[in-house]
């Protein structure tokens, strides 16, 4: 079973989002996603300053099995990409909701964050996907 923290928001495409105290949104891929992908080998995180739209593919995670786009949950400006993933893509496997974060975005509109799936809705989406 995969871990779905109750305090995060999610996309059906398996990204998670966390609203930080400074108003930015941290984004990564869910525990379910990292399990399905297997060992991550390359990560292309976006650079700070890039404008992204909600639903836009803005990072790539590549595993032993497949390459996957990572979609932005919100529109805004990228504040940081996780530079540690360049040398240690396995951080996503080891700690998908912590050290394996992919990017931090300053959202244009916080309401977009509030409209994302909550943990319960994401768990339901996972259940629907596997049955």
């Amino acid at each position, binding site marked *: 079973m995969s871990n779905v923290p109750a305090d995060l928001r999610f996309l059906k495409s398996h990204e998670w989002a966390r609203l930080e105290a400074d108003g930015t949104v941290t984004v990564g891929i869910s525990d379910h996603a990292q399990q399905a992908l*297997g060992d991550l080998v390359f990560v292309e995180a976006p650079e700070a300053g890039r404008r992204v739209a909600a639903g836009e593919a803005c990072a790539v995670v590549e595993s032993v099995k497949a390459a996957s786009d990572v979609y932005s949950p919100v529109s805004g400006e990228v504040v940081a990409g996780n530079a540690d993933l360049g040398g240690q893509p396995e951080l996503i*496997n080891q700690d998908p909701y912590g050290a394996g974060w992919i990017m931090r975005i300053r959202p244009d509109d916080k309401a977009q964050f509030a409209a994302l799936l909550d943990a319960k809705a994401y768990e339901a989406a996972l259940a629907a996907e596997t049955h």
Partner: protein
Amino acid sequence: MGLRTPLFDTHVAAGARMVDFGGWDMPVNYGSQIEEHHVVRRDAGMFDVSHMCVVDLRGARVREYLRRLLANDVAKLTQSGKALYSCMLREHGGVIDDLIVYYMDDQWYRMVVNAGTRDKDLEWLRTHAGGYEVSVEPRFDLAMIAVQGPSARSRAATLLEPGFAARALELDNFFGAANDHWFVARTGYTGEDGWEIMLPADQATDFWAKLRDAGVHPCGLGARDTLRLEAGMNLYGNDMDETVSPLESGLGWTIAWDPQDRDFIGRGALAAQKAHGVPRKLVGLILADRAVLRSHQKVVVPAVGEGEVTSGTFSPTLERSIGLARVPSQTTDRCEVEIRGRLLPAAVVRPPFVRHGKIAVAL
């Protein structure tokens, strides 16, 4: 639900991620695929390969039969237990399957064929058996466990009956030895030393548990694929199938042209292809960029033509992506591969990429 090996419940209990492989529910990994890969290169790993099919072929004319059916020549096998790798071809030269055949005695050969091709292989074997009065007996009562890695044989030997262990440890590469219903062969699909062990299916779970307790680590098909690709070994269905000949698949070395009067199935087509010039070849690729080669990606050879990646992966030993590709024969040492809309440069090399734990290509 797919087909299950005798070790299915063992894999599930160990937390394996199960996937469909040629109609079988098989473990792709038990945790980190890359760690499983390294354990085979550095120590000892084991694979459940019971989905592969063991076929016993018996009869007074079985040698003659196999000299007709296989592109390699079983007449090379003169010592009991000696193994031979061969393709089995259609008349037009396409590859039905690649397989290993063991010479047991003058009236008995043992073949190991791929899981996904089992049914058509058996049909082909039976179709041709009649004329030679050969019996074709698939051994569904046997399981198969491959123990691979520098420490694999010494660890596994402690679990065999002492007399059999001594005989097994003396085996040269590509030789096997039988003991009642057990058969141990110094073969594998990883580029490391090791054994492939055939044993009665009802003893498989017990033996697997003992191997694990002896420090042989369970490994899934994911690691098996990265290991075989580093070792430059073809995978049937990816790197060759019935639409290509062994000459276009890096398997020319497995065709026994001599003696010239041996009329194996497919010989005429291969000879014609050779005479006209083989249009394509299978080569190894190494990617410089941080991306991963995957099967079916387009290969562009400037001023020569195009080809296709047949197998690709991330190589844990080289820490970059490697693959096999079918390209025009005139291809030299460089090409480009289209990955996610970009053409990335790749070096063309001769496999293997890794042999006995050491990098075998220039990076």
